[in-house]
């Protein structure tokens, strides 16, 4: 109503009939303020967010947006390595690990510990999936054996107790991926059980431990040179921002239809409650589908 009565009607008439009722500066300001407040209400914000300058937007999020909005003019790279299944999620959030939080080193070169602050996920939203994306690089210029296929195993552990210097950490394995380093690509690891636990109990978030294990049959001298877990001194900040590990969470606030993206099922004792929620959502989805079918008939 606001839009039609003030701002757009007048601007539209300007374009079409050539007899515009001129808007005063005050009217314009009022119209813009009205437009802003109505849009904020539509988007569910109490006030407009003011992010700090220099926020890095992960390429993966841009690609997901392009895929979602059906932008077919530009080719979408094959970065979607995760298997997809059906579970509603209308919000995707991305997190970089916190550099300020220094966890004790693993002691070996093929391991890294990182910590993500997931407290920004609203409690009202249901977490349907979480993935950790890690960049695996094959630098052909520095490697003599270009044709040689390198195979590693990427393991991700959830650290169960705070890591101390002397004692070994207590951790549980969440996901394993076999990686073949032929070309540079992204590897996706399922960290849903851990993130779900952190979301419900933020105090139990002690971080993740990622280990790169050389394959038995294909031992490599230093697998970590291919897997981007830590920033190397020679790597520029801009390059690191592109290659650094990325945590992506998929949530559903129950308000809007789901994004055309899905979840891989995970079996964990911790996520029973969430699984119930997911089941409920799935049930309502099937009901909706049935209704739609009936309507069509």
């Amino acid at each position, binding site marked *: 109503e606001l839009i039609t009565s003030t701002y757009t009607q007048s601007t539209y008439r300007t374009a079409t009939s050539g007899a515009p009722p001129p808007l005063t500066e005050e009217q314009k300001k009022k119209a813009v303020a009205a437009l*802003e407040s109505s849009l904020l209400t*539509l988007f569910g914000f109490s006030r407009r967010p003011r992010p700090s300058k220099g926020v890095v937007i992960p390429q993966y999020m841009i690609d997901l947006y392009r895929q979602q*909005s059906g932008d077919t003019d530009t080719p979408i790279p094959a970065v979607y390595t995760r298997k997809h299944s059906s579970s509603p999620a209308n919000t995707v959030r*991305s997190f970089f690990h916190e550099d300020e939080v220094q966890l004790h080193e693993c002691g070996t070169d093929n391991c890294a510990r990182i910590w993500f602050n997931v407290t920004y996920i609203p409690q009202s939203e249901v977490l349907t999936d979480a993935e950790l994306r890690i960049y695996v690089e094959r630098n052909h210029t520095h490697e003599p054996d270009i044709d040689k296929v390198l195979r590693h195993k990427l393991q991700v552990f959830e650290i169960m107790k705070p890591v101390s210097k002397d004692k070994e950490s207590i951790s549980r394995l969440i996901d394993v991926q076999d990686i073949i380093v032929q070309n540079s690509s992204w590897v996706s690891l399922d960290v849903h059980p851990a993130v779900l636990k952190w979301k419900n109990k933020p105090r139990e978030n002690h971080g993740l431990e990622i280990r790169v294990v050389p394959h038995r049959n294909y031992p490599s001298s230093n697998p970590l040179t291919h897997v981007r877990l830590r920033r190397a001194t020679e790597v520029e900040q801009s390059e690191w921002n592109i290659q650094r590990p990325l945590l992506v969470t998929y949530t559903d606030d129950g308000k*809007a*239809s*789901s994004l055309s993206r899905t979840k891989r099922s995970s079996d964990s004792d911790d996520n029973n409650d969430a699984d119930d929620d997911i089941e409920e959502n799935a049930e309502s989805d099937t009901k909706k589908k049935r209704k739609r079918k009936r309507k069509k008939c």
Partner: protein
Amino acid sequence: PKGDKGKKCRKKRKERRERRKNKKNKKKNKEDKKENPPGTERPGHQNLCRRRPLHVDFKDVQWTDWIVAPLGYDAYYCDGTCPFPLSDNLNTTNHAVVQTLVNGVDAQAAPTACCVPTTLSSISMLYMDEHDKVILKNYDDMVVEGCGCR
């Protein structure tokens, strides 16, 4: 082919021809609508309830600092009169018919049926929140797809 098969083929061909014809007509109607936007109706033509173009530009409210994509979107809006008799495509509720009819007999207390969105679709938005987190969210009911009287 002769016989039953031939009959079937001819029938199918006829159906296909008709479908093509209908498609062409639909396209023509759409183009006509585009060529005659609101406010430019010829005299004698009623300003009937239908979807009107409306582009929401986030630049207007200076939101480009937190919305990464899109920079704006075609929201559309509904506007126009709901005269009696209401055509089938505009009549979304039977109440709209009664309302328009009563309004027509000079009963001022009965408001005329409103031209409102009947079908809406969603948009995806990529933005940064106040914690500097990048979020991709799907918002329902943001684009008007169809209008009707209610």
